[in-house]
């Protein structure tokens, strides 16, 4: 934490853990004998318990969405610019819940937890989890917190997919849904990127078929490659050109394979820092959850029919330079939603920041979120 807390920060937050003792049946046919979900909350729940917003994280996120866990933290939570007093997700008005998904590596039950059946780490034996499994586990957390119905469920990218799944799985429990830089399912190109990332991890000599922890090693090179590849797809060509151009680190070509261009240095740095905080098995699980997500599948591919049961009011936001989840993908969602009879608004934000734009402050983007949530809040007041 650099300097004193700013007045629009949620401040120091303590992560908490929710323990569910009963078994949870998973989409893959297996079950978890019980599980822990790590979560944080910001703001306070009102007397009617109607002002809660669930924030769902993306591929490499966790429960730490806003504020600081320790005074000497270098960075706040991943969506700190958006969540706080007076911020678009206003903690003066809303009670925000953010949790780390099942299969995660930040304290929720996942590959690094002990499998009670064997007494060993789950590792690669951890069952494949889906977006729907996550949503069901989040609903149990909501029960635990006494939240019958969320004022909003929000998320970007894979988080947006969870928010979408919420509206189908628990239509009566979601007043509104914010689907940001999301898509109704992955394209073949998206799946291809995920597959290359997984292959990079699994072909690392230190991977040991997922049992690397028991060998006391980490498949660093593979995980780093996966992250480097991911990063390329999260940025836009224009942003990379603007940030790095073809700038050389030493001002001259060295005709070798060491880092010469600034972009190479940036990607390596991103890859290396990621390896220190993220787990390879979790990365495999999360990308699989992305690949499998397809709520229309049970309705002969008819997304409008899948969404016809939703009761939420929707906000869909896309970013012009996002080619990983391009605006056309968001428009598929919008079309299915209004065809299915839902109330939906759509904003296409002009931004150079690629897919990462959903994590960054942007006047128009935040203006849209604020306007939508102010409306949600005003209607809570009327309902009260």
């Amino acid at each position, binding site marked *: 934490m650099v300097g004193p807390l700013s007045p629009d920060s949620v401040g120091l937050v303590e992560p908490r853990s929710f323990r569910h003792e009963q078994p949870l049946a998973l989409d893959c046919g297996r079950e978890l004998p019980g599980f822990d979900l790590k979560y944080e909350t910001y703001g306070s729940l009102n007397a009617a318990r109607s002002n809660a917003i669930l924030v769902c994280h993306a591929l490499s996120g966790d429960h730490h969405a806003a504020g600081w866990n320790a005074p000497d933290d270098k960075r706040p939570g991943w969506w700190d610019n958006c969540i706080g007093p007076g911020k678009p997700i206003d903690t003066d008005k809303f009670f925000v819940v953010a949790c780390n998904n099942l299969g995660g590596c930040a304290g929720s039950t996942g590959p690094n937890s002990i499998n009670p059946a064997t007494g060993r780490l789950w590792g690669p034996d951890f069952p494949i989890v889906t977006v729907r499994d996550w949503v069901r586990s989040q609903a149990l957390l909501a029960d635990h917190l006494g939240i019958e119905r969320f004022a909003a469920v929000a998320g970007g990218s894979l988080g947006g997919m969870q928010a979408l799944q919420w509206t189908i799985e628990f239509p009566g429990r979601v007043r509104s849904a914010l689907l940001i830089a999301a898509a109704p399912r992955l394209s073949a190109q998206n799946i291809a990127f995920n597959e290359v990332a997984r292959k990079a991890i699994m072909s690392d000599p230190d991977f040991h078929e997922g049992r690397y922890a028991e060998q006391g090693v980490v498949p660093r090179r593979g995980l780093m490659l996966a992250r480097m590849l991911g990063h390329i797809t999260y940025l836009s060509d224009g942003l990379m050109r603007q940030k790095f151009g073809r700038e050389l680190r030493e001002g001259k070509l060295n005709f070798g394979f060491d880092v010469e261009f600034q972009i190479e240095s940036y990607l390596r740095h991103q890859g290396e820092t990621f390896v220190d905080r993220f787990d390879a098995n979790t990365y495999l699980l999360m990308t699989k959850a992305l690949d499998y997500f397809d709520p229309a599948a049970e309705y002969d591919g008819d997304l409008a029919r899948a969404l016809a049961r939703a009761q939420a009011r929707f906000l869909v936001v896309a970013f012009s330079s996002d080619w990983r989840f391009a605006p056309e993908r968001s428009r598929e969602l919008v079309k299915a939603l209004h*065809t299915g009879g839902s109330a*939906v608004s759509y904003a296409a934000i002009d931004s150079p920041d690629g897919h990462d734009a959903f994590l960054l402050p942007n006047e128009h983007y935040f*203006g*849209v979120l604020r306007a939508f949530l102010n409306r949600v809040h005003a209607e809570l007041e009327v309902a009260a």
Partner: protein
Amino acid sequence: MTAPTDRRLDTVGQPHLQRRATDRQHETSHLRGDHALIAQWIRPGSRVLDLGCGDGGLLAHLRAARAVTGYGIELQIDKVVRCIERGVNVIQGDLDAGLADFDTGSFDYVIMSLTLQAVYFPARLLEEMLRVGREGIVAFPNFGHLNCRLQLAFGGHMPVSSALPETWYETDNIHLCTIRDFESLCHTLGIRILQRTVVNHQHRRSLGARLLPNLLGEVALYRFERKTDLGHPAAPSLHGDRP
């Protein structure tokens, strides 16, 4: 086909409807003149698509006053934000890209007020309006108005008026037309005009605009449908705004 200047189509002043519209609470108080006129044509409880919906004023009014549901399409982000703020469903998009995201027959009315003249393919969009909706409603500034004619004929410059306030190099309007032009386009496209109102720039009706609409009308409003649509014959009496 109705003759281009057939006065039978004109809607005459309906003070009781004007009053009813302005009596409604806050949503109504800032209602734009063209919107107030259009709102009178909308059957309660219908489903509406408003092309170029701006800040959502018309849809908010229709929702409050006529229990209408629907969507707006708007290109400018600040207006999109305004729509979202007032709880109007808005889809940010460019009308020049068409209405392909909307299913055939999914709306009762597709409205386009003071926007027709600013799109690249007005004829194509009119047809799209009647694919997506049962009826279309447009309002546009009449370039045949006396003032325009005088400015062009004697001033030798592109007209600037309260209905057409921007200079030629600043205006969004790229396809200006007259009342006669519009009606002949409707004829070509097989569009049946159900109602027409011609007003001045303050959206008031006048005897002059009724007698000589193409010469003395500044803004023209039309409600129309597909001529081939035998399943839905014109039923203006349902709208309760005939004299």
